[in-house]
């Protein structure tokens, strides 16, 4: 069964643990700049939004790649890279609308979330349950429910 990360942004308190373990497990360095999951911060409202590769069906990063190293895995549907052929030109990075292709300054290649080969560490360490690992069938449904409850809450408050 194919699974994806589901992010419940309202639960994120911005602790940054996900970024640290992601960076460490992929590069051996505890530096959030090397993380494939990014916690964006809305400083004005004190809100945090973890974002990571959406594994798009038709990924703009794959179109941009000058070396054709980005492909869709036919089995898992993940957007995967042959990092050894990457020349680090960063064309994919600037063409990702979500800003989640990241330049790995240690290996000088661009990377994206690889779901830790099916066992994502960020999910394990997240103390608030903001990141879950659920089946692809479940993700859209859960997102719809979340969006609907937001709307309901909004109209009740009005």
């Amino acid at each position, binding site marked *: 069964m194919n699974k994806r990360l589901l992010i419940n*942004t309202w639960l994120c308190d911005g602790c940054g643990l996900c970024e640290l373990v992601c960076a460490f497990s992929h590069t051996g360095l505890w530096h959030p700049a090397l993380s494939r999951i990014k916690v964006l*911060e*809305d400083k004005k409202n004190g*809100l945090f939004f973890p974002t990571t590769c959406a594994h798009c069906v038709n990924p703009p990063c794959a*179109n941009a790649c000058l070396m054709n190293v980005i492909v869709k895995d036919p089995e898992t549907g993940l957007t995967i890279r042959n990092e050894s052929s990457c*020349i680090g030109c960063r064309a994919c990075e*600037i063409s990702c609308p979500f800003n989640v292709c*990241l330049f790995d300054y240690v290996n000088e290649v661009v990377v994206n979330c690889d779901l830790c080969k099916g066992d994502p560490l960020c999910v394990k360490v997240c103390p608030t349950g903001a990141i879950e690992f659920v089946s692809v069938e479940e993700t859209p449904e859960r997102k719809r429910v979340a969006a609907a409850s937001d709307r309901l809450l909004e109209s009740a408050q009005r």
Partner: protein
Amino acid sequence: MRIVIIGNGAAGNQAAETIRKHDDQIELIMLSHETFPEYSACALPDCMAGWIPRSNLFLKNERDYDKQRIQTILGRQVSSINIDNKELSMEDESIAYDKLILATGSRPIIPSLKGSALKGNFVLKSVADLDKILEHRGSRVVVVGSGNIGVEVAEALEIQGCQVVLIELMERLMPKIFSHKAAAILRDTLEKHQIKVLTGEKVLEVIGSQRVEGIITDRRELPCDTVIWAVGVKQNVELAVQAGIDTGQMGGIKVNRHMQTNCEDIYACGDCIESFDIISGKPALSLLWPSAKRQAEVAALNCLGRESAYEGSLNVGIEEFYDTNFVAIGLTADALKEYEVQLIEKEDSRGYYCLAVVDDRVIGLELVGDCDRLGAIMSLIKNGTAISEVKRIISNPELLVNIPWYVDAGEILFS
């Protein structure tokens, strides 16, 4: 059904792969005058600089074509297309097609000046060109033209230990890509690394008896043993024109949004066509790898009867020169002279950047420095999203929660 593709570059191969992805029955034939399997032309300067081995240029090998059941006929020229019989003629045989995709590409221009045919004059467009330059082993090089290729080649050869002079006809480097400030920073960067930069200067003649010994410009004479011409490309449209296929005002094959030419069952994509700019809607020659791949995808899908339309070409240039990133997305203010363009220039810890804004929409971005997290801005340019809309979303957490990456865009737009 048999689909024939002329061209083995980014567009030709993308077209073949797209067709195979959707249909494993169709007979696919790919023809090319080049003998190499698909390679990345964009990475040629990287190979020249010694950053990647030559073998890494290749994106496919012969077996990959077999695996995808693409029949290749390489190293052969197509001499004509017979539209009425739906047939291609080559030297000694002819090949029938049901649908034809032209991905004939472009070729670099060498101006016909005195001496420009002497030994020691080169261009860089193909692996064969690269091999010739490396074999020549020049040490005093003049690079003429400062587009992407020109500047990349200048850097690569300087790194290889050559003395390099870069000559540009216009008043600044990369004039079609960057405006004055970014071009000035680029010039400083190159000059710091001992590349001599001459702008506003015209090459008049190449001198030498047997081989290149120097060049004469309108201002001086320069001794050199190698001249690399990077003054632009010309669309390979001769085959199409001879068959009666229309070309556009800029010299590329004319296609509609479905990549169809005026002749039935003939499609075209890649460098050889004239498409349109995604922002201005004006006719444009887009010579970029991603544009070629997208056009090829559209052509292939329409060939298969699956409707698909091209969105338009977006100019994207991303270059790293001596560890500094230079990025240009969209149009420069020069390209939209008839509009009132507002320029927002900033310099901060990220570096220098300049946004060109027309009517509440970002139409172009130039940046020298940190190119992290630019994607959100690029998608605003591509989609024509209003700046006021970005402001509305980032000021409302309930909206922002669904598009949080606007935080990144906001940082560049409003900080």
